[in-house]
């Protein structure tokens, strides 16, 4: 019995490409969860065999066991990838920490036939993203509802998304954002300046996936004619016709520096941490890792004025909703203003966006999931009472 009490609870982390993290927000999250939680929990993480060939695979990484599946973690294969991971984890895990909703269809059966605890992070509102076709959107729309309904705890990465889940599902979604303290302020060296001459003068910086919903075309158009600052923009230009068109249009423009994707963290940090302004055009997807990283680096932020970005920056950054507003903001910036905003961003990030804090919150949720019987609702208990009874007792006005 003592052995049972002291045995660590077992967590399976499902839904990421894998570790070491090279690919994106969930992967970085998974890596930091492993770093911060393996002291208290026995963690197994599922990785995609398609992205980690046999010669680089490991049996464990930072005290977490790794399991590989011969499937892609993204796209249509994410459905069987997550499903098989969940099924495998049922044999040993106490808690399933699922990042993304692709495998959510199986959760009703997990709840029905097992006593495993399910914590699911629904990411941004994925089904709304333009990158998905109609069938994918429909599946994700449905899967999200299943994920929220059948999990013990669901996690949003942004208060605006919490509002959405409350409105749609009546669910009290927990907010856990991302960490950014893995980023570094890297001083510029002569070699860097030789490779990137724009480093010698102030510049604006943007790093993102080249997609219309990130407002890349709008930002490029404005900066092409903005005299104040050149724009350095890093992204996957060649992945789509949209990106290729923009690259062809602006690659020779004197005020625009178009760079292909940079996967080396240090190289990216050199360019990013020395920027005078960070431009964030994302209009979807909740709390964006690139934004919180820029904030942590103390960069002044000029962001698209959607609710997620405002919440992430606590309404303390500069915002634009269209071309004219972006032009106006750029015209109005000056050094002291940028410095103040940058300092605010850094204070917010150091308070909210650190990996130890994120891991601590996840740890608390894991502990909570093992205790709760039922997921709390946003609706008060009184709203679920029989209306005629409330009316008789003179309390009907309290009903939601």
């Amino acid at each position: 019995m003592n052995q049972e009490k002291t045995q660590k609870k077992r967590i399976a982390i499902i839904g990421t490409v894998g570790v070491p993290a090279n690919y994106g927000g969930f992967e970085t999250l998974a890596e930091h969860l492993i770093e911060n939680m393996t002291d208290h929990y026995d963690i197994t993480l599922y990785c995609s065999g398609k992205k980690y060939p046999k010669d680089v695979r490991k049996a464990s990484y930072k005290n977490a066991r790794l399991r590989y599946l011969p499937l892609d973690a993204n796209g249509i294969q994410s459905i069987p990838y997550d499903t098989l991971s969940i099924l495998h984890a049922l044999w040993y895990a106490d808690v399933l920490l699922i990042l993304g909703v692709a495998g959510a269809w199986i959760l009703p059966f997990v709840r029905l036939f097992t006593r495993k605890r399910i914590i699911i992070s629904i990411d941004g509102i994925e089904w709304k993203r333009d990158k998905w076709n109609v069938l994918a959107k429909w599946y994700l729309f449905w899967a999200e509802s299943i994920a929220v309904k059948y999990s013990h705890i669901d996690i949003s990465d942004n208060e605006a998304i919490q509002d959405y889940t409350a409105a749609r599902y009546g669910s009290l979604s927990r907010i856990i954002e991302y960490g950014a303290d893995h980023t570094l302020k890297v001083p510029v060296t002569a070699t860097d300046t030789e490779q990137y001459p724009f480093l010698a003068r102030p510049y604006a910086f943007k790093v993102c996936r080249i997609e219309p919903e990130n407002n890349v075309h709008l930002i490029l158009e404005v900066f092409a004619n903005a005299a104040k600052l050149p724009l350095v923009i890093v992204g996957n230009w060649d992945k789509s016709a949209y990106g290729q068109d923009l690259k062809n249009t602006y690659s020779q423009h004197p005020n625009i520096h178009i760079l292909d994707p940079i996967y080396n963290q240090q190289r990216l940090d050199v360019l990013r941490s020395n920027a005078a302004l960070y431009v964030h055009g994302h209009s979807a997807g909740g709390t964006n890792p690139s934004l919180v990283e820029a904030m942590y680096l103390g960069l002044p932020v000029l962001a698209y004025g959607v609710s997620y970005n405002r919440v992430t920056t606590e309404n303390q950054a500069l915002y634009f909703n269209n071309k004219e507003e972006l032009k106006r903001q750029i015209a109005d910036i000056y050094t002291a203003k940028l410095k103040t905003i940058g300092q605010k961003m850094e204070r917010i990030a150091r308070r909210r966006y650190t990996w130890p804090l994120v891991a601590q919150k996840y740890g608390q949720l894991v502990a909570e999931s093992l205790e709760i019987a039922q997921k709390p609702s946003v609706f008060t208990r009184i709203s679920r009472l029989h209306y005629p009874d409330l009316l008789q007792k003179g309390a009907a006005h309290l009903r939601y």
Partner: protein
Amino acid sequence: MFVSYFLTPLFSCILAWLFIPLMRKIAFVIQLTDQPNRRKIHHQPVPLVGGIAMFGASWLAAALFMHQWGDLVLIKNIFVASFILLIIGTLDDRYDIRASFRLVVQLLLAHCVFDAGVRIETFYGIWGIEELSYGQQYWATILVITGIVNAINLMDGIDGLAAGLSLVSAVVLAIIAAQTGHENVFVLLLSYAGALVALLRFNFSRTQKIFMGDAGSMTLGLLISVVSIRLLPTGAEGRPFSWILIGIISILVIPVFDALRVFRKRLKAGVSPFHADKTHLHHLVLFLGLRHQTVSLLLSAAALAIMVIGFCINNVAGLTWAIIGMVFVFYAGTSILGFHHQVIVWRQKIRLMEMQR
């Protein structure tokens, strides 16, 4: 005789084509018009005279071209009941009378139809049910007639839908009537078909638009329900009858099951089943971004498709499975459309939420 089968719908179509413009003018004078509001799509008042014109044209043409006077009792009963519903419907269009009063009238007329001998006597072995007792016949007949009258009424939500579905129904029932020797019913249905074509022309018009109104939709519902029951095979006719049942059921699947689906949802939401909203099948199809005419055409084609599916399943698995199959196709279709509707609605809500903070 065969010439008259061409002349009947042609004549009723021409008559309706002449009646409608005249009645449009009268409608504006007596304010028999549908006023625009937040829920409706049109921006100008639209005359509600389509039903009256269609009724007049159809019965005039039918009277002219009916050859024999057999089955006269049935024809007279349909005429009288339709006429009463036409008056009630016109009063409702003009003065917005209470739904309960309309329902009482419909129930009384259904009772009269039953009394006249038009009744559902058997379930033909569907779900193992054969002959019905007298009481069961009564309630089944009353339910079917009032149900279909109201279902067609509820379908009259966008241009051309009730008329389009009724046209399909009239043609299918006319074929059944011809095949089963109900000649006067056949002529009557042809006559209505011709008038419906004229009605559709004006229904789709931008400058001379008319609606059929409750007068039109209820009389069409009565015609379809009574004729459908009358044409139900009695078993004594000595020929395979499942195709008749499938033909009749297929034209009713969309209006009847859509009404049931919507009623269930409204009751589940705690509101009156007659509460006006935008959850009917045609609203869901409109969310695909199609024009009214296209939606009406699609749904009319869907009724035919359901019939074909019913025939195919019946050939393989029998009548009960054919009915289950037809209903399943309907529910699968509405589920997909309903799902799409939810996605659109939530996307709009999220857009508002995103720009609010």
